[in-house]
């Protein structure tokens, strides 16, 4: 079993300014208050779980008035030392783009931009899968937050084949709520989030998928973080946990329900910094 080649170094943002201040997905209800202390504890718990699993966690400074900055998965796409910042569909999140771009530029990344008329929400809507016997492809979702044409432009920027999947359930509005690559053969998959064509694409790509039931998908099981053979999950229903352990993974349940109020789980709170999509990219630069 070939472990993921990435997932040992993450960018996170402390939730000092986190809150549900607007509603841009079906999980968000502005009248629901976030318990800040609890949110902070849960976030600290996630950081600890990732570190314990062997990952390095890098922090970016939180900023007032951009509460969703905490969901660093949506910052953009990392490819070696290249960073492509997101273009957010909702004006509420658009201010995040320049904050993210500035952080990555300061960290030594080459920042390259998507065409301004196209929306794409970064690693939230694009996750790499590298089959044991094949090249890396980026599985990218579209419809609620990202444009299908944005995916084409992104593919041209990062030089990696992209398989587009149409997202059809507004509750699973990002592809990282429906798809979690585990290694070169396996992935956690929530078919309820995809149209029939998307399901066929994933079936053809992933030799051994763990198909989630609808309630498991809506418990954000696919929004997990994989560090080597450890899977940090917002919730691990028994059936899912047993299957993952049978495959040899260590399952760590890390409740982040304060963040679920905003429609985000463990994966949403992290952005892997050690992803290389183009085989030649890291060495060429």
């Amino acid at each position, binding site marked *: 079993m070939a472990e993921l080649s990435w997932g040992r170094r993450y960018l996170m943002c402390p939730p000092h300014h986190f809150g549900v201040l607007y509603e841009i997905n079906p999980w968000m209800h502005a009248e629901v208050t976030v318990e800040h202390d609890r949110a902070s504890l849960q976030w600290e718990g996630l950081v600890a779980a990732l570190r314990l699993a062997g990952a390095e966690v890098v922090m970016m400074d939180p900023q007032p008035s951009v509460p969703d900055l905490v969901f660093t998965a949506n910052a953009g796409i990392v490819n070696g030392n290249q960073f492509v910042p997101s273009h957010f569909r909702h004006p509420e999140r658009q201010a995040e783009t320049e904050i993210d771009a500035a952080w990555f530029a300061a960290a030594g990344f080459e920042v390259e931009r998507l065409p301004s008329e196209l929306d794409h929400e970064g690693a939230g809507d694009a996750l790499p899968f590298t089959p044991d016997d094949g090249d890396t492809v980026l599985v990218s979702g579209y419809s609620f937050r990202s444009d299908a044409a944005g*995916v*084409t432009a992104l*593919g041209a920027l990062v030089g990696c084949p*992209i398989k*587009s999947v149409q997202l059809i359930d507004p509750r699973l509005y990002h592809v990282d709520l429906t798809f979690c690559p585990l290694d070169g053969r396996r992935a956690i998959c929530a078919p309820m989030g995809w149209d029939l*064509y998307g399901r066929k*694409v994933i079936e053809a790509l992933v030799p051994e998928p763990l198909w989630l039931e609808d309630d498991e998908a809506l418990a954000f099981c696919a929004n997990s973080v994989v560090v080597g053979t450890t899977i940090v999950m917002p919730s691990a229903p028994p059936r899912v946990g047993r299957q993952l352990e049978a495959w040899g993974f260590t399952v760590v349940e890390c409740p982040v329900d304060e963040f679920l109020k905003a429609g985000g789980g463990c994966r949403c709170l992290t952005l892997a910094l050690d992803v290389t999509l183009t085989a030649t990219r890291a060495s060429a630069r």
Partner: protein
Amino acid sequence: MATETIELSGHIVDSLLLAKVLDMIVDAGVAYELVDVQIGRTNVDPSRARIELEGGQPDLDRLVDDLQVHGANRLTSGATTLVAADRDGVLPAGFYSTTNLATDVLLDGTWVAVENPEMDCAIVVAEGRARTIPMHRVVRGDEIVVGSGGVRVHAPAKTRGASAFEFMSSEVSSEKPKALIVREVADRMRAARDAGGRLLAVCGPAVVHTGGAPDVARLVEAGWLDVLFAGNGFATHDIEANVLGTSLGVSVAEGTPTEGGHSNHLRVINEVRRHGSIAAAVEAGYITGGVMAACVRRGVPFVLGGSIRDDGPLPDVYTDTAAAADAMRAEIRGVTVALMLATTLHSIAVGNCLPAWVETFCVDINQAVVTKLADRGSHQAMGIVTDVGPFIARLADALCGDA
């Protein structure tokens, strides 16, 4: 029928995007053609497909909007470029030269239909509207469309209404059963009038020479013609036949030349000129029958375009060709069926002014006339190769029998 071209690029084959888009097109009942497909040679190379869609405009617009969600982009030819004319009667260099097909221009992001489609004109844009304009009508400062960017042309419908003429869609031929064709033309004229369209006839002098004028007059009297275009010759011989019983000096009834008949038409023109107009001559009782008198009595507008061969001419004849063309343009509004009866040059002139959707039947004994009309751009013309006299008599029987 309208057409759109969309382009889809990326990893469209293994993402099943192309399959999905094609399925959506088929589900929408829209016809498509893959005009260009480039499949990436390696896993990393993106693929590209250019798809031409053809269907009803509302279906097509809805489909293209739906397809955009999946990354299929409408291929627009770019923005419309407008250049102001810098002098009267002269278009800016590089002006867009129109076809007779329904045409749209992209103005502020929306497609606006060009009014009065006509071939060999320019497009002028004013106050968010676009219309064709002939070269000589351009006034300094008019905003004229330049280049083909932001211009789209709708393909002509492949089938004609109720498929009545499918059997005739082959080459122009004299080997067609005439009775059947007459019945079909009559049906198309009935259908056009029921749909609120106007019926136009363009007549050459041969209509009178072959004895067809009384039948055209019957059609006018019975309300089967709404507009008449002709030249000095047709009107003159129609009046000559009524007043003196000859057409170019030959007895219409006997078919024999009459004594001194070569000057008959000149004498008739001279008398009409004395009255001041054809209408005045009809009112004074000088002209008592024929096509022109029927038009005057029924209030059917006619436009007589002059030529340098004309004798006289009759006082109603436009001797300024540009003015004649403008008068024809004014009468063409709402015309949906045009009969071109035994006239070569006038048919081409009128064909140039007609939008492509006007059903045009070109009746001539000479096959070359029909071919010529199509070659000059009036591709919608249906050719009927036959002697115009008997044809128009049968058509009048078919229509006036039940009118």
